């Protein structure tokens, strides 16, 4: 066991982990931050995406020890300071971008990373960017629409399709 320390959603945390403990497990089991989900064991599904030092990372592909000293943001850290939904979260609700909610934390974290680098993506760019996030419920239509809307683009035409 080794002690690992990091900042998670603005709070300093630490815990004892084995070398093989994944960041996803450290967050879920060590910190009780169960919003980060684990949907696969081959780094494909993206349910586990968090931000590590500002970059979107699949937390199942990182050992907890590799995040020692890092700034980590999870879905639990994405709401506004007053507790209301952040812009992307709100767009997901407004445009029905989630059904069972299991892929949703990863989708929101990926969308946030996309919009940081590319504030006005095209539909094709959004779809391409989400290649590492699988959703089995929504058929992606409303996820793409929500992300387009969160970037301030008009999606009325999509509704009329």
């Amino acid at each position, binding site marked *: 066991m080794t002690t690992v320390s990091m900042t998670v959603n603005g709070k300093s945390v630490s815990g004892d982990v084995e070398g093989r403990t994944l960041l996803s497990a450290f967050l879920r089991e060590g910190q009780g931050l169960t919003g980060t989900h684990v949907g696969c064991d081959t780094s*494909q599904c993206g349910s586990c995406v968090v931000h590590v030092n500002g970059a979107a990372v699949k937390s199942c592909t990182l050992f907890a020890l590799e995040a020692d000293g890092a700034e980590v943001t999870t*879905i639990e850290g994405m709401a506004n300071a007053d507790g209301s939904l952040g812009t992307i979260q709100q767009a997901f609700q407004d445009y029905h971008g989630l059904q*069972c*909610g299991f892929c949703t934390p990863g989708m929101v974290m990926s969308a946030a990373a996309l919009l940081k680098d590319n504030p006005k993506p095209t539909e094709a760019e959004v779809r391409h960017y989400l290649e590492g996030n699988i959703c089995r*419920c929504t058929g992606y239509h409303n*996820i793409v629409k929500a992300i387009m809307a969160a970037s301030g683009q008009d999606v009325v035409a999509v509704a009329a399709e």
Partner: protein
Amino acid sequence: MPKDSGIGASSKRREDVRFLTGRGKYTDDINLRGQAYVHFLRSDVAHGRINGIDTGEAAAMPGVVRIFTGADFEGVGGLPCGWQVTDRHGNPMQEPAHPILAQGKVRHVGDPIAAVVADSYAQARDAAEAIVLDIEELPAVIDMKAAVEGGPKVHDDLESNLCYDWGFVEENKDAVNAAFEAAAHVTTLELKNQRLVANPMEPRVAVGDYAPGTGDSTLYTTSQNPHVIRLLMGAFVLGIPEHKLRVVAPDVGGGFGSKIFHYAEEAFCTFAAKAIERPVKWTSSRSEAFMSDAHGRDHVTKIELALDADGMFQAIRTETFANMGAYLSTFAPSVPTWLHGTLMAGNYKTPLIYVNVKAVFTNTVPVDAYRGAGRPEATFQLERVIDKAAREMGIDPVELRRKNFITEFPYATPVAVEYDTGDYNATLDKALEVADVSGFEARRAASAAKGKWRGLGLNCYIEACGIAPSALVGQLGARAGLYESATVRVNATGGLVVMTGSHSHGQGHETAFPQVIAEMIGIDESMIEIVHGDTANSPMGMGTYGSRSLAVGGSAMVRATEKIINKAKKIAAHLLEASDADIELKDGQFSVAGTDKSVAWGDVTLAAYVPHNYPLEDLEPGLEETAFYDPSNFTYPAGTYICEVEVDPDTGKVSIERFTAADDFGNVVNPMIVEGQVHGGLAQGIGQALLESCVYDANGQILSASYMDYAMPRADDVPYYSVDHSCQTPCTHNPLGVKGCGEAGAIGSPPAVVNAVVDALQRNGKDVTHIDMPLSPARVWAAMNG
């Protein structure tokens, strides 16, 4: 003007807030004090005899609490099958035992052999590696035809690998054959409906708990129907009466059928928690899910369609081999029979139909219902053979369908069901309009200018859902009733809690159900809360599958609310000193007809619980009612789907350019949610058509057991869809006039995609009449160049 609340409003989903902030409560988020973890050691061969399991070294490893094998389950029941099919000769299907942990033999890759319970997952996994297995590998049988033609037997104690040979309707067989003799034209098609894996994004999880003080067991599980699990596991496997067993299915991350069934891991965790007097938790890995979740589809079919010279359908004859896998999963026998044979009439007035299904055991993972279950298989063969017939006879595929449409309702099909209502021309016309079919030629020319081949395919589907009339399914072999329940509890201050057996795992019940009750009473949706997923706090209910929640569960809720309103009117009559026949309820206000006397909903509910001024001699205090609703028929959503594809002639790659769905779901409570359900179904159907396939090699190894090899649809595999549900013929036999929308997308889309690809190839001079799904670039290219 769209409504902003009640029935017909696109109310935003209240459950989204917890999901969007990471505060959902899924089964894997549950951790009980002192819990141990189980890892299952699973077979890595498809068929083998277990000569020995040496757990000695493993049991001594750090953290190991106990190791279980099949021997620990002697005398414990096996997993039961919930449906018994009777074969063509009147005999019951062959039904093998399905042990919790393998006994004597392993029969598919993934069959659990031993279960290591330890203080941590890592310790359980490490110890499992130290178990020494002596398994003699036996020849496996994977191909269905080989299985029934004398291949190795999956179960030594059964006569053969044939589970049943079913004929439907057997009495019609000779008449069907005669119609084929007399037909002007016969179109024949052989096709596969490939094996799929449901793949909800949340893997299955089970947590068993036991209270030694009271002898109560609790199972937390990823289930679409916790009451069904309680009944099956309690009564048939572990012998725990229902009052000593609680099953909780909290937030569930998608199901699509795969979380209907009772699985060995659920029974194991419940059993082991009692044995070691500690909670026992199992979380499936995705790799494990591929070899332990029930798979879907896997039919091989020959269909023949007999037509007269004008193109009128005379008869349909089919022969299907349906893979059951190594054991019978909970509802497996019903899928290729009653959920498939009954749909072979489609939207058409074919007078004579004969369906033969041979269900076969093989050394593969059990196969059961996956979104649509039987109905996608029926629709696919029918709509593919109709397209082929249209080309052979030189009739426009739209017109061939149209001239054979059923137009008068109710319509009794020759395959045992009666369609109550529908308007197939309306959805066809709507789809042609929304898809802008008249603009297709221009789009095709534009594609051609880029060197791409464009094609258009359509599909008209019908499905039977709102499952199901209990008396009917009982005659058909169901071993359970398929009603639904709801208890409506009104609180003193006027808020309502609805406890329902329907389970929401993405469908948005917490939002849509209150819309119905709010409309009935005339109060705000926020005053109504839906409670589900816990056998301890809702009446016995059958759960969510077969697009039944609103049609059956919603109907139970309506009936219970009607009882509430009736009683509340009596209380109001007392308060208003009027006759209850004169009381009207509108906008949450009870009034005496023709007067200005009224009393508010909240005053009546308060009087029910503080009965100071109350008709106690006539009425009990309190305001809580339960209703069980058993539908009198299935519901029959129907519609037309149109797909436009571009095929790259150099690579065979198919891209979906446009996809239109025009559905008749009857009345719609929340259009936003309904559209979302269709979107999701479309992606799964497009996934089946183009991408997904669960592939076994000849030895029974699964070659597509992770997301590296099983091609899940991703965001850039699908377009924005155009969905329309404005054609509405309300269901005639349930109080809401609703039909169900959960499965349509997955049922209606695969034939539309394949028809479009075949169309693109034929327009470009390729004599291709069929390509088996998934239409990978390699397969399309081979068909083009074959």
